[in-house]
């Protein structure tokens, strides 16, 4: 250290006073260091969500700027009584449940491969990170081109009808959308599950093996119960993320043929139709849905989630 301590340090003040001023300065420093980040985080979340609530109670249509005014909850009743919202809500939940379920199974399989492989772990980890690094929009285009009847190679594969028009029907579109979502986000799931997997004491497996447990029994009786916290954390984040599905659907179908998600509905109302009142009502409803999902997870598995947070 080049900083020279004073040769004769000033005598310490009375201990309690010194300690409390130290605590006070530490407290002040802590708040000062956190303030910029906290302000930046609140700037685009707290204020806009309040503003969204205000907008949702008004008749704001930027195409007709002269009209407007407070309309109470009529935007909400308009949204909630429309078939479109419920269709989109169904679509969103369907995509969310199926893709998260597939990701969990696939992610677990990949995590086990990464953990237990007797060789080639590096190769697996490397290739698993590729989907993570790719822009969601790019991945959506790649799968769209692959499944398109004109340019794609998928229809040339065995067992798949040559003339199948994947984007010509609602549920075949969902199949491709879910496939793209699963491809893009399974790596994240696998890495979170792997983090839970490595914390399991390998002696448990040895003991079970000595007792004659089969591989399947070891998985269901040891791995799954001990990984519950990690699984719940991974499920929570992926479920919330999947509920916000937007990019893939926008690129693949733009919501045609009843394939819209709630986020696409919000975007269409807000940006395409410039109806800020109705659009904000949709936004607030989406916010409430996300809040509800998070609440259910935290209420249902609160302490388990706490254990499962690797960093927290």
């Amino acid at each position, binding site marked *: 250290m080049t900083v020279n301590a004073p040769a004769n340090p000033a005598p310490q003040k009375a201990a309690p006073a010194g300690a409390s001023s130290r605590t006070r300065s530490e407290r002040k420093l802590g708040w000062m260091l956190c303030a910029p980040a906290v302000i930046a*985080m609140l700037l685009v979340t707290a204020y806009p969500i309040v503003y969204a609530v205000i907008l949702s109670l008004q008749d704001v249509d930027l195409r007709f700027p002269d009209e407007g005014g407070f309309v109470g909850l009529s935007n909400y009743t308009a949204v909630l009584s429309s078939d479109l919202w419920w269709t989109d809500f169904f679509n969103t939940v369907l995509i969310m449940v199926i893709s998260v379920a597939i990701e969990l199974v696939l992610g677990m399989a990949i995590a086990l491969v990464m953990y237990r*492989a007797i060789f080639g772990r590096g190769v697996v980890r490397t290739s698993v990170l*590729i989907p993570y*690094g790719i*822009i969601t*929009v*790019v991945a959506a285009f790649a799968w769209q081109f692959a499944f398109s009847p004109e340019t794609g190679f998928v229809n040339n594969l065995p067992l798949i009808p040559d003339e199948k028009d994947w984007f010509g029907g609602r549920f075949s579109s969902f199949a491709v959308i879910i496939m793209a979502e699963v491809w893009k986000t399974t790596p994240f799931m696998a890495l979170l599950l792997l983090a839970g997997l490595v914390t399991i004491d390998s002696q448990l497996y040895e003991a079970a093996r000595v007792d004659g447990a089969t591989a399947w029994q070891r998985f269901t009786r040891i791995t799954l119960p001990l990984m519950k916290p990690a699984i719940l954390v991974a499920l929570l984040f992926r479920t919330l993320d999947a509920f916000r599905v937007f990019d893939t659907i926008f690129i693949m179908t733009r919501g045609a043929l009843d394939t819209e998600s709630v986020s696409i509905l919000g975007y269409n109302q807000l*940006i395409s139709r410039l109806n800020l009142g109705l659009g904000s009502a949709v936004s607030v409803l989406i916010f409430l849905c996300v809040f509800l999902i998070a609440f259910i997870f935290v209420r249902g598995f609160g302490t388990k989630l706490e254990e499962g947070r690797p960093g927290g």
Partner: protein
Amino acid sequence: MERSSRDYVLWTIAITLVVIFALIPVLWLISISLKPPEALTDQRFIPSEVSFDNYKSLFEGGIDDSPFIKPLINSIGIALITTAISIVLASFCAYAIARLDFPGKRVILAGALAIAMFPPISTVGPLFDMWRTLGLYDTWLGLIIPYLTFSLPLAIYVLVAFFREIPWELEQAAQVDGATPFQAFTKVIVPLAAPGVFTAAILVFIFCWNDFLFAISLTSSDASRTVPAALAFFTGESSFTAPTGSIAAAAVVVTVPIIIFVLIFQRRIVAGLTAGAVKG
């Protein structure tokens, strides 16, 4: 346990499946981008002839007429600026949370977690309206601000996890030697924290690079439109040709560097993703 040759066969199959699963879309994009227009519909996975016309068309006309150069500059610029600001703010915050004792830090961590779960679409309408009033619509700053907000939780969680691993005594030792808390931070902790900071920076950059919702909602022209948004609005050479080839080429241009980057720093990214664990 003995490793039988059957084990090797099974593992080889499992690993091959994972690798194929991960690589197919990328190889497919490269394949399409290299196909000349007349071969685009041949449905072959491996192109029969190779042409670089799609790549040339991306950069044709220089910065003013090319549909791709400006969005690329916007993407890189916006992502770099956001990453720099986000990492500075998150480092201060994470340092305070990991090292100092003050009331409210649990609230900050919980708040950051809540923002990581926040649906961005819920802020798009208000931001669109506010940005138009404030003149931030279709500007770099108009995208940097929301990216900053939504990347901070990720950065804070990754950094707190890394900072907690740093040997605490060294900082005290520096303070005993007469360094101020700020000096102890910049001279001792920062060098030790650099790997964690770098990891957080990679993750934040990828997050900004990937965003699509804000990019199409808060921009209207090449002045600030980023690559994902520009790709969605790509048009063909004429109104009768589909832009498939140029989209594929542009996709390859923005994907390959990131993949190389991710592969070089894979260990750090894996560590960061599991430490942060707030964003997919």
